[in-house]
């Protein structure tokens, strides 16, 4: 194999800043779009990840979110609708040293790219997927998406959508994703910390980001992102901690049979010991899946944070292992021997 240009080992670790990750292109999202925050948090956290700028590759599909790579001063590939996971898989398989990121949206990842999405999750390449979920098609001007709630009135559903929406977290978990998380465009600190955890995770990392489309679906997630309502409608998942939420930390989630239930921690009936304790590292997916279903029960808070984080072998690592094993068994490939393999005869 051809040696790639060898990189000099840095004498002192290069100090990068947010500015190093900002490209010279004008950002062309609508003013007030939640994408700005996600872009800013990504640009802020990348310098802390400790790898050279040239090793980052951002790959996107089609949609508002997928313009993202143009605004990052890294290697980037704005591909075609729904197919970013496939191209990212090729990039990572060919060069496992790269840090590969997929930027996608609810339509891109779950409609046109649904098949690739589930297969990326199960293959477990070391790729980070940021799904900007705004529950609407923005770039095509306001049609319902596969995460839009049933009954939603849009240009394409004037009488209300009759589709059942996907639950992205459930879908990722069911597909075998090894890292699954949810964060919010309007919670910069949390978003940065989840992006960092996703990067640290070896294997496919999936983050669903609630993102506001202020033009076509304004306020879709305000209940979960705005100061007045956030605390009572979200529960932040912390490994090893009970599921406590509410403005005053006075509510919790406990199990009633197979159902999650909100209980009061202030009326003396329940204490922390009664609550579900989060375990993001357990191999069994049941708890994570159970938590992912909470968004579908009215009255329950939406879980935010890391649902699952387990280490499995990565696809590209196993590929390399097979190559090494084959080389050990058969020796490095010899083209001449290969062409002359099998039954041959000589004509004088």
């Amino acid at each position, binding site marked *: *194999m051809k040696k790639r240009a060898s990189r000099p080992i840095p004498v002192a670790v290069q100090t990068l800043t947010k500015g190093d990750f900002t490209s010279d292109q004008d950002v062309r999202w609508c003013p007030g779009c939640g994408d700005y925050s996600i872009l800013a948090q990504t640009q802020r956290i990348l310098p802390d990840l400790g790898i050279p700028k*040239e090793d980052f590759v951002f790959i996107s599909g089609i949609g508002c979110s997928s313009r993202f790579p143009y605004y990052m001063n890294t290697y980037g590939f704005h591909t075609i609708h729904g197919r970013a996971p*496939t191209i990212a898989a090729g990039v990572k*398989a060919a060069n496992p040293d790269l840090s590969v990121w997929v930027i996608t949206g609810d339509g891109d990842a779950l409609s046109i790219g649904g098949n690739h999405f589930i297969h990326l999750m199960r293959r477990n390449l070391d790729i980070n997927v940021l799904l900007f979920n705004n529950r609407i098609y923005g770039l095509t001007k306001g049609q319902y998406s596969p995460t839009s709630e049933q009954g939603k009135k849009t240009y394409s559903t004037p009488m209300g959508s009759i589709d059942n929406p996907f639950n992205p977290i459930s879908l990722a978990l069911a597909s075998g994703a090894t890292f699954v998380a949810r964060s919010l465009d309007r919670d910069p600190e949390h978003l940065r910390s989840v992006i960092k955890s996703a990067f640290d995770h070896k294997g496919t990392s999936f983050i669903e980001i609630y993102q506001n489309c202020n033009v076509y679906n304004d306020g879709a997630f305000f209940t979960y992102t705005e100061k007045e309502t956030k605390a009572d409608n979200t529960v932040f998942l912390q490994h090893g901690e009970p599921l406590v939420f509410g403005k005053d930390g006075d509510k919790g989630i406990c199990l009633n049979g197979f159902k999650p239930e909100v209980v009061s921690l202030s009326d003396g009936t329940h204490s922390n010991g009664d609550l579900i304790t989060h375990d993001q590292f357990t191999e069994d997916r049941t708890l994570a899946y159970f938590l992912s279903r909470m968004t579908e029960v009215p009255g329950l808070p939406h879980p935010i944070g890391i649902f699952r984080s387990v280490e499995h072998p990565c696809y590209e690592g196993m590929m390399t292992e097979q*190559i090494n094993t084959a080389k050990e068994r058969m020796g490095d490939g010899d083209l001449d021997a290969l*062409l002359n393999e099998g*039954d041959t005869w000589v004509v004088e």
Partner: protein
Amino acid sequence: MKKQKQSIEEATILFASDSGGGAQSIGTQMTEASAIAGNDVATLPDYPAEIRAPAGSLAGISGFQLRFSSLTIHTPGDLCDVLVAMNPAALKVNIDKLKPNGILIVDTDNFAPRNLRLAGYSSNPLEDGSLTQFQVFPIELTRLTREALKDTDLTQREIDRCKNFYALGMVCWMYNRPMDYAFQWLEEKFATKPQYIEANTLALKAGNIYCEVTEQFATSYEIKPAKFAPGKYRNIEGNMATALGLVAASQKSGLQLVYGSYPITPASTILHELARYRNFGVKTMQMEDEIAAVGVAIGAAFSGALGATGSSGPGIALKAEAINLAMIAELPMVVCNIQRAGPSTGMPTKTEQADLLQMFYGRNGESPLPVIAASRPSDCFETVYEACRIAIKYMTPVIFMSDLYIAFGAEPWLIPQVSDLPAIDVHFPTDTNGFEPYLRDEVTLARPWALPGTPGLEHRIGGLEKEDVSGNVSYDPDNHEQMVHLRAEKVARIADDLPPTEIFGEPSGELLVLSWGGTFGAVRTAVEHKQAESKSVSHVHLRYLNPLPKEIGDIMKGFKKVLIPELNLGQLRLLIRAEYMVDAVGLNKIQGQPFHVFEIESKIHEMLRGDV
């Protein structure tokens, strides 16, 4: 009894059985044995899409046609000298392919009323006089095989599965083939099941001895070795040659090969073959669908690998949008289209060459891509290698076309010397000074292949129109027009990089036969026959379809008439007429079957006589 040995020039044998009945297996054995004996060989496997159609039914018949010769041949033969039919359905499906007075070997034990009914015979053809024009050898193959294997521990069902090797033993006797190769093959194939080695070996020998001792078979045939150019040979199928060509290009360029694929007939065997080459660093990725398969090839190319994907027409249709992305992103990639009979699912196990216009035009927008096609099984190696060379040199996806007929067909291959393969130079820029992602090479118009991981060359590519040089997104009208022209010009310039077109025959005359792809063998043979009759006919076979070689227009001017035989309704003809305003005549066949030589000969005859 005295047996005679007769020397003949060549023979064509067709083995036919139920799918799964072993026709393909013994056909392959006989091919290898004949090739090793020094004959030129050509094969035509022909089987149904169903893996195991109902036993004895017409739909389930699998055939393997093999021609071996002391002369150089280009086709597996129009009609057969020998038909080995394992049941009435095999007879019914194939009897039209047997020459008058040809040898017909049938397993009479399978001609029971039920089998005859399944095959649609109202009376037994072995008894009703309908086969009098052939030399019929009715053999109790089933009973004889059971008799030969009665001392083995196999079940009756297992014993019956050895019948095909009994038949192979007979054919080996008829053509004086040593059986060593088959013995050796059995040893390898059934390494973990020694009882099958023993049984099939017994069946093989029994069939051979049967011919030796019975009076039924009085004559055996000898076919002298063909005259080949000196060198080392092996027998090769088209898809195998394609896989080897890709590995060779990977090794010669120093690029790792990443092959994304999704199983589809007739392309899957390329994936199987490449999957064996992990020790060459080959990364095969069987993906969730056709789109993902091309997606990983594109991603790998972006990362600096030799990205390739393979499929057939329906799969290529699914890949079209992604191929177009690679086109506008100007990334090197090889797309293999192993054509089969369409449209839609069509006839997946039958051959056709009706995807040419799809490869030229089956993408949105102005999307020029180089298109090249292999002519015969062994040519797949050189042609796909050339596809890789062009892809890398010009930074473009290249379409490599083959078809089922040559993908599954086999022939002797003069093994090339690795050192003789053309160099494939790769340059990954590292100099940040003046780097622009769409700054082009002055000669080839290729853009630089700057890899992720290279410090200072960070850039973005994508499917949106690019500004010339900078590669930034641009909606500027003039820039768009310029980029469309640049991409077209880049592909057009490949014509400066092609070897001269070979004209088989005189450079001018009455008739030029122009062909492409897997029709080469039949067309070349027909032209040879007509030239031997001193007819004024020449042949040009095109490997390069886009761009066409520059001299094609002038070559055609040297002939009064141009004939373009194709296994489609005239797709190359459409392109040639549009490009050169030449009133080319078509010979078009859409039956899922390759051309017979006589079909082309008769068209040539018609045209020379002035009927067309």
